[in-house]
Each structure stands twice: as structure tokens, then as C-alpha cells.
């Protein structure tokens, strides 16, 4: 099976190992991840202002690339890109007025109405492959290893983009179990990591 995938800046640079290991693991599970061509920045953070449409252009253009390449679904690995792309997609799907404005503004592009589905890698593992298949294909079980699952914000909030239950997610716990390790109870599993605040607020950074 082939799935189109959006990498984003960090997977091509500082987190190249994440991209390499994911492509190799997915190949072993029978899925060929095909990078979409001509992708651009996802916008990094979703614009929360109602009157700010210019910052929706970048993620919407990426979704147009997916639609052009006749792919119904795009897999995202980076959780920030996932959040931004999925929210921009919902905006295009649900807000007729803003959709019209954005489509008119990008008159060089084909019209986009939120046709593409944005999914995170963890959802593909759970819904398309399944924990059982992962367990069955396991070569080296992670025996006697205790792992703390960490979700953070962008995979779970807001509710409409959440890949699991907002307050009590279990998807990572399930993956850890499928890999033969033991997920431990981690009280900070859904707490904020500080994200971009590490750049501008060093004082706050220490406690995240």
C-alpha cells in the first residue's frame, strides 16, 4: 500500500533520524510512504485569529498539493505540522465564507474544499495496520523496558483534531504494549512541553 506523506522542515534536518526510521518501519509493515512533491512550510502554528487569513495560505497550499497528486489522505509525522494542517483542512471544509476568500486569493491554484484527510502516523499504525499486525511482525520485542508515553498538546487539542480521547489518551500506551514494552503511568503525559517558549522565555523554560 502507498500513502502520501508530508515531512515538514524538522524531519528533513534536526529530526532526520525520525523520518528515516519511520520510512523504514513502515516499509517493513508493508506501507510505502511517498513524500508529496513541492510541499512548503505548514505555517508551524495554526492562526487563532478570526481576521487573519494570510497565515492559512501555507497549510492550505500543502493540502492542495496532496489533492493535485490525487491522494485522498496525507500522513504527517511531526505533531505541530499535523495540528496546523488538520485545522486548516477543517477550516476549508466547514467555513464557506473563508474558503471562498482563500480560493479566490489563490487563483493560480485549483479550488480546495477540504477533500483531503489529514492523519497522524499513530492513527495509521492503529487504524490501517493494527496493533496485532505490529506485534506479529516484531523482530526484537522491547522486553523489560518501561516507557513513559508523552502526548503533549497538538495531537489532542482542540477536540476536533484529537487523535484520541482528549484527557485520557491511550494510543501511545497501546503502541508501547504492541512493541512488547511496558507503558508506565506518567502524570505529565498530556502536559504542555513549552514548545516555542524555549526561544523567548528562558525563565519559564526551566520548568516545562
Amino acid at each position, binding site marked *: 500500500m502507498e500513502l502520501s506523506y508530508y515531512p515538514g522542515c524538522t524531519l528533513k534536518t534536526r529530526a532526520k533520524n525520525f523520518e528515516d526510521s519511520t520510512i523504514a518501519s513502515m516499509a517493513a509493515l508493508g506501507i510505502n510512504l511517498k513524500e508529496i512533491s513541492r510541499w512548503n512550510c505548514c505555517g508551524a502554528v495554526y492562526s487563532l485569529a478570526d481576521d487573519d487569513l494570510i497565515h492559512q495560505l501555507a497549510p492550505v497550499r500543502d493540502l492542495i498539493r496532496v489533492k493535485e497528486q490525487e491522494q485522498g489522505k496525507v500522513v504527517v509525522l511531526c505533531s505541530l505540522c499535523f495540528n496546523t494542517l488538520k485545522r486548516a483542512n477543517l477550516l476549508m471544509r466547514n467555513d464557506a465564507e473563508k474558503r471562498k476568500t482563500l480560493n479566490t486569493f489563490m487563483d493560480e491554484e485549483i479550488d480546495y474544499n477540504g477533500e483531503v484527510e489529514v492523519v497522524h502516523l499513530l492513527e495509521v499504525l492503529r487504524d490501517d495496520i493494527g496493533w496485532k499486525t505490529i506485534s506479529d511482525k516484531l523482530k526484537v520485542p522491547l522486553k523489560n523496558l518501561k516507557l513513559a508515553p508523552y502526548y503533549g498538546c497538538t495531537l489532542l487539542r482542540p477536540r476536533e483534531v484529537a487523535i484520541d480521547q482528549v484527557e485520557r489518551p491511550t494510543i501511545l500506551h497501546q503502541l508501547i504494549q504492541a512493541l512488547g514494552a511496558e507503558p508506565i503511568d506518567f502524570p505529565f503525559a498530556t502536559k504542555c512541553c513549552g514548545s516555542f517558549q524555549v526561544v*523567548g522565555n528562558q525563565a519559564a523554560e526551566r520548568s516545562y
Partner: protein
Amino acid sequence: MRVGVLSEKACGDLAKKVKEISKEDVLSCYQCGMCSAGCPVAFAMDLPPRQIIRLLQLGLEEDIAKSKTIWLCTSCLTCSVRCPRGLDLAKVMEALRLISLRKNIDYVRPAEISRDALAELPQIVLVSSLRKHTA
């Protein structure tokens, strides 16, 4: 006699501007404090999120301007998903930041980011910081 403190009249210009930008109505807040209780950054804030909303309701703009709270908000949306009144506080904080940023007053100066930080941080964190904290 019933006294309606939370009327549009009592509300300041800033709250109206926030509503224009965010489409969120701070008058819907009844001050339960759920936002402050769950906020992962509240410990570092001089005013917790609930008090920012209260100051907006009362039109006390100077107190908000003096506070660092809006710049510490990470938009993690914990408050937004928990608010029993459905107020999206993250959008309110974003609107307050934008009111300042749109006057070209940056919170982060790119030239002051250290070389060590540039060499170490994931690219997306730097892009997010510039998106959130510069005009």
C-alpha cells in the same frame, strides 16, 4: 434590585477589539477558575488567565498591558477544552498578543537569539516562536 455588572456598557474597548479579532466574548466567563487551575504555565504568570479575563470584563487595560501573562501562554489549549462556558481563552490571548504585535512591537528579537540556541533547537520551534512573538 438586580444589578447587571456584565453588560456591554461596562465592558471596555479592549474587550470589543478582542471580540473583533477572536470572535470570543469574554463576558461569557463566570470566573470559575478552571482555566487557571489547569494552565501548565500559570505558576510563572504574574496574573493567571482567569484574572486577565476579569480585567478585560472590567476594561482595566493598563493592568493587562503591565502583565507578562499573554506572552507566557503557549496556546496549548488546555483551558480552551476545559472551559465550562466554552470560551476559547487561547484565542483571547492570541488577540491580545496581536493587538500589540500589529503595532510592530515584537516580543522576541530574532537578532538576540543565541547561536547555541539556533544550533540546537528544532527548526519548527524557531518558526513557531517567530510566528507567535514577532509582527
